[in-house]
């Protein structure tokens, strides 16, 4: 857990920056909404609509939006913007409600004694609305700290890294530490703000108001410290998607880079297309993807009847010409989707499955049923299941073992297939495309750091066969090792 301080700092930095911006934006908006009720209804309406967007979707949608306006679409910026938008509603709404709740007779008196609009706001309305406004800020604080854990898939490191990777690698301790740390941070910030608020009430003192706020600011500044110390040189940024194999491979690349004397860091738990876009933008330097995934989803090509080499060569050429991305090499194993059943009930081939499918339930990850190769499977084998259930990949093996589903779209190198004694159905019509694991480098990386890239290629290209990969995955999934420890045991 040596990454906890770094992640906690990144989390606090992100949440506090977003909170500060939400207050700086929400407070004037709330005041404006109070002064102009017509506009106010609009502002609150828009903020409410934003609130109805699921947090994860709001974060994810920031990536293409930012890319469309040529802004950095991966990392802190999309997370920051989404968090600010999310934090706005409670602040705007409570500022408005607080100002509306100020006794009309007191407002009239403020005008009567000769206060200008601005003086009335500063000396009477805001101080009297403060408890309600602060309740909104505290709600926003708790939401922002909580939602910041979801910024991991858009490439902003946070305590969510512990939770996302922990869930995928079945490291429950890591999940728990991530959750507890996030909750503790939220409680501490909430408590400090409550103290500051009670200090600002009638009879309070300036010291009792400012001291807790100073502590909040200190947390923010302390969270900035790792940025300053880590500024020397630019570390190699290695991307990882959200499953065990990706964490292990990223750890392997990181170790190779360290051996070559380079600084390296892993940007983990990126969404599938987020990782690709991040590489194309240069937000990450390297990551491992799968030829069939690129072929089918990024290049939008037909998956039927193509050979492993055709896919590999075609992908390499397309990436170079269309995106400037370099496909350095294949790592030596395939990780394709595979239809898997409990060993005692297995049906040998997908052909045999097609006859029974109408009585069966199939489980798959969030993407599977939307992917072109699933359509191809349905078309070529006439597959029609009684029910399709999308679920988190970390849960689907358990779901099959328990009998909640009868078939799953598993990953062929996953250690849990063997661990559970599941059987893989054959694909006699060769519909599932070959998924060679391939090492991708961002445009220009080989030219800028040729020695480093060559070292990593020498260490990893063609060096990992399916057997080795399955074993590494098993060490994490079944033995409970960390991806870094598993990677260290390689060779």
């Amino acid at each position: 857990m040596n990454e906890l301080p770094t992640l906690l700092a990144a989390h606090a930095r992100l949440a506090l920056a977003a909170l500060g911006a939400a207050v700086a934006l929400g407070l004037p908006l709330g005041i404006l909404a109070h002064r102009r009720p017509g506009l106010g209804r609009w502002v609150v309406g828009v903020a409410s609509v934003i609130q109805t967007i699921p947090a994860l979707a709001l974060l994810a949608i920031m990536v293409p939006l930012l890319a469309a306006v040529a802004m950095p679409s991966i990392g802190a910026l999309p997370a920051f913007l989404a968090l600010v938008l999310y934090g706005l509603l409670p602040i705007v709404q409570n500022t408005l409600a607080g100002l509306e709740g100020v006794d009309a007779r007191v407002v009239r008196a403020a005008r009567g004694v000769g206060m200008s609009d601005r003086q009335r706001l500063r000396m009477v309305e805001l101080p009297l609305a403060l408890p309600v406004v602060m309740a909104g800020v505290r709600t926003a604080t708790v939401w922002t700290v909580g939602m910041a854990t979801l910024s991991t898939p858009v490439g902003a490191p946070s305590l969510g890294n512990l939770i996302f990777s922990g869930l995928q690698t079945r490291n429950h301790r890591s999940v728990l530490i991530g959750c507890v740390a996030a909750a503790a941070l939220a409680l501490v910030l909430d408590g400090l703000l409550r103290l500051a608020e009670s200090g600002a009430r009638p009879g309070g003192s300036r010291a009792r108001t400012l001291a807790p706020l100073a502590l909040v600011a200190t947390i923010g500044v302390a969270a900035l410290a790792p940025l300053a110390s880590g500024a020397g040189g630019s570390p190699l940024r290695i991307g990882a998607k959200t499953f065990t194999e990706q964490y292990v491979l990223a750890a392997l690349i990181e170790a190779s880079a360290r051996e070559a004397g380079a600084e390296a860091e892993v940007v983990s738990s990126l969404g599938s297309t987020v990782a690709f876009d991040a590489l194309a933008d240069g937000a990450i330097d390297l990551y491992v993807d799968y030829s069939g995934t690129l072929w089918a989803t990024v290049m939008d090509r037909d998956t039927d009847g193509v050979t492993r080499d055709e896919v590999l060569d075609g992908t390499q050429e397309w990436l170079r010409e269309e995106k400037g991305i370099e496909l350095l090499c294949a790592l030596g194993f395939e990780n394709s989707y595979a239809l898997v059943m409990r060993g005692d009930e297995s049906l040998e081939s997908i052909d045999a499955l097609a006859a029974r499918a109408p009585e069966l339930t199939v489980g798959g990850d969030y993407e599977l049923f939307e992917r072109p190769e699933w359509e191809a499977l349905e078309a070529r084998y006439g597959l029609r299941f009684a029910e399709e259930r999308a679920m988190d990949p970390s849960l689907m093996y358990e779901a099959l073992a328990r009998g909640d589903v009868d078939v799953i779209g598993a990953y062929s190198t996953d250690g849990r297939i063997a661990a559970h004694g599941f059987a893989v159905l054959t694909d006699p019509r060769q519909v599932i495309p070959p998924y060679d694991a391939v090492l991708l480098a961002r445009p220009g990386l080989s030219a800028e750091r040729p020695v480093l890239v060559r070292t990593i290629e020498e260490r990893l290209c063609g060096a990992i066969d399916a057997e080795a990969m399955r074993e590494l995955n098993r060490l994490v999934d079944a033995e409970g090792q960390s991806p870094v420890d598993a990677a260290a045991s390689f060779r």
Partner: protein
Amino acid sequence: MIELEAVTKRRGEREAVSDLSLRVAEGELLALVGGSGSGKTTTLELVNRLLETDAGVVRVGGQDVRERGPAELRRTIGYVFQGVGLFPHLRVGRNIGITCELLGWDAERIRDRVHALLEAMELEPALADAFPSALSGGQRQRVGVARALAAEPEVLLFDEPFGAVDPPTRDRLQALVEARKGTFTGIFVTHDLSEALRLGDRVAVLHEGELQQVATPAEILAAPATDAVRAFVAVGRAAAGRYRETE
């Protein structure tokens, strides 16, 4: 000097004040009486621009109030609010000195002024550090009057200030105002005829937004000019008469 010249103020469909002309001489306290909805408070609010006239002119000290900024104008006009309207989050001393603060007086001058006013209003100096919630109703009213007096205004407006306090307290508060008469020009709004008769140099009677009569207290009692004034005086007399019978 306060002058209203043919002033009309509409509230929705009806005229809250219609074609009202009034003149309060320098150093005079005019009592403005009438029932609920007669336009008394509206008239006051037209003087310090809490409301704007729809027709007619309001002058304070000979100058059209529309020629002055509303906030700046109000700092020169003391206003005692119905229900007081003290700022609950500010200590009593700050409440009293608020207009002085807005006018940019230095802190020491404000402190001296606040203490002088507390003394004049027969309040403990220590109350300067209390919050309004700690005061009795009568104490709050005194603070309200002190606040209106604080910045040495040319003109004072009283909006039914003593309506909600018990009779002995009201009597003492009236005595405080009475004792200062002649030192300011003002309008005292009340629905209590006896209060109007006691405090007003002259009494003006409003009924449904229209001025019925302006006269000295003696003339009002002796020769009510309209049915509305007669009714108002009769109710007051009847109450006083019943009171005498039970003595």
